[in-house]
């Protein structure tokens, strides 16, 4: 039995019921189109939301934590060596926040193959002076070039040019919220007071918007040297080293390695932002569940329509069998019908899914928290298209297989006698 003739018979049967066949194919098309656009949209959103935090978070952060000393004086005592001790209300030691030999550590890290880039950082507690009122503030001292390269700094700077931070001495990029309170415009001079009590005049050269209002009310950015000046520290004072890795999954292992090697506190991104990973995976699971449900429902559609077709075409099946078609041939015919519906529906679905994604991608979407985003985010990952196609073919095969088996078991004698 040639494939050509199987398909010819299958084609004729489909043509005889072309409306139902079309409905079944449209069902597959719809489910695939929605599966693709839903998952693409969800993944786009996930990337956007994760990006809000994760892109700006170093994969590994080196710093000196304020912690009580792990070795209390009593632990050093030989007399009480084998005793248990309880100390209440332990206070941290007067550790410096400065990282010792920061420049050497940075040089060493820059040579590490696994490291994408290193950016030093200082934070300074200040008060923004506003007439009689003092506002709490934090100035982040950054290396603008590294910050831009590793954390897309410019995406969050609205108005002004972030590069001026390095060129103009005593310049500041104010947080959007803080600027609004101070009614500061670009070019204005503002005054800040350091915790040591010294006053500094800084020129506003731009605004910073992170998307999180509480942060924007407090945080501002300045050059490393400016911040060192505010703190009254020397030019080798660095309190944080931010590391971006080539492979984010290595972060926990490397954090441990660097922590031990440099004898410093190291925190990895997974520990710092565990909740974001969880959120993303839960959202993905939900959208996969919805998408797969759609595909299964369309599978039931095909199952129903094939079942109906078999009841209607009992005579045809009986006559095919009487004239020498084996059960296997009949099964092939009905599987061919099912798979043609599946393949045609899937191809159309992939196309419509892509078009639907394009449409969503073009819908304007403005949010103050994300200045770089203008339309809804969509991920065009090929994996969604292949999963949809594979799953659609699998469901249509299964949906066709049961009715096809039933058709192959039709007893021609019963049908022919029954007339």
């Amino acid at each position, binding site marked *: 039995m040639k494939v050509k003739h199987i398909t010819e018979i299958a084609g004729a049967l489909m043509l005889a019921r072309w409306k139902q066949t079309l409905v079944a194919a449209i069902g597959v098309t719809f489910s695939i189109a929605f599966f693709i656009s839903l998952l693409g949209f969800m993944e786009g959103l996930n990337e956007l939301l994760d990006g809000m935090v994760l892109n700006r978070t170093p994969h590994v952060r080196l710093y000196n934590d304020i912690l009580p000393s792990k070795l209390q004086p009593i632990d050093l005592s030989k007399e009480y060596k084998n005793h248990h001790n309880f100390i209440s209300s332990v206070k941290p030691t007067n550790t410096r926040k400065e990282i010792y030999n920061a420049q050497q550590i940075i040089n060493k890290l820059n040579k590490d193959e696994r490291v994408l880039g290193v950016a030093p950082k200082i934070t300074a507690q200040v008060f923004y002076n506003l007439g009689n009122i003092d506002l709490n503030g934090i100035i982040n001292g950054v290396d603008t070039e590294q910050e831009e390269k590793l954390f897309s700094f410019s995406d969050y700077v609205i108005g002004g040019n972030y590069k001026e931070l390095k060129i103009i001495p005593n310049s500041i990029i104010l947080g959007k919220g803080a600027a609004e309170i101070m009614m500061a415009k670009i070019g204005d001079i503002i005054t800040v007071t350091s915790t040591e009590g010294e006053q500094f005049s800084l020129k506003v050269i731009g605004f910073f918007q992170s998307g999180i209002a509480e942060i924007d009310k407090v945080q501002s950015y300045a050059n490393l040297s400016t911040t060192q000046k505010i703190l009254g520290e020397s030019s080798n004072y660095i309190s944080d080293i931010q590391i971006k890795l080539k492979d984010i999954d290595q972060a926990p292992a490397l954090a441990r390695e660097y922590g031990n090697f440099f004898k410093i506190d190291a925190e990895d991104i997974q520990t710092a932002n565990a909740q974001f990973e969880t959120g993303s995976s839960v959202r993905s699971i939900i959208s996969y569940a919805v998408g797969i449900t759609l595909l299964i429902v369309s599978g039931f559609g095909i199952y129903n329509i094939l079942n109906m077709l078999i009841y209607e075409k009992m005579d045809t099946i*009986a006559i095919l069998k009487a*004239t020498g078609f*084996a059960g296997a041939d009949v099964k092939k015919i009905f599987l061919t019908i099912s798979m043609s519906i599946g393949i045609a529906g899937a191809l159309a679905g992939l196309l419509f899914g892509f078009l639907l994604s394009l449409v969503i991608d073009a819908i304007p979407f403005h949010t103050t928290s994300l200045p770089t985003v203008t339309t809804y985010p969509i991920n065009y990952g090929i994996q969604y298209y292949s999963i949809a196609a594979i799953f659609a073919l699998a469901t249509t095969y299964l949906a066709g297989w049961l009715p096809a088996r039933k058709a192959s078991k039709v007893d021609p004698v019963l049908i022919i006698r029954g007339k």
Partner: protein
Amino acid sequence: MENNVVLEARSICKSFHDPVRIDVLKDVSFKLSRGEYASIIGRSGSGKSTLLYILSTMDTDYTGELFLDNVSIRSKSEKQLAAIRNEKIGFVFQFHYLLNEFTALKNVMLPGFKLNKLSEAELEHNAYEFLKDLGIEKLAHKMAYQLSGGEKQRVAIARAMINDPLIIMCDEPTGNLDSKNADIVFNIFKELTETFNKTLLVVTHDLDFAEKTERIIELDDGRIVGD
């Protein structure tokens, strides 16, 4: 002479068990030789249709032995039986049973597709020749549902012939036809046996039709009462 036996039934018995045991066929044995034109007659319920379905290998639920072309068809798989039906048996049913989705010509060609011995062009030529012999070549490209009853039955006969079978089995082939068409069908069958040396086995309750055949096997209550 032995080699001329096309079909042999040896003490075939069949019974239905639902709801109570009813013996439909009791120890039916007969032989059919090449070129014979035989008819099976009997009253309604005498088991003649049941016998035909057993002889046609479609019904395998019976006891006894059945030889087709001197080969026992016992213990053949469903697939092998289908192949035997395809190659060695032609069918004509009371209800014409053409596939409405195809043209008359395609209907005739279908068993040939399954046999897959001839190319499509050769098959189409043969099918057209058969339709021509039956005087309906003009209808070759009409859809099956557009044909009249007599025309459909002739297409069905052409379909039964397409794979050059050993035996053609008919179940009430004239049951649904008027006497004029019934005569045409009878004459076609006669010609098949005489010209093509085909074996024909016709189940009918049309006594006029049966009396014109060479051999009459009479069934009553599941037994052969006359041959």
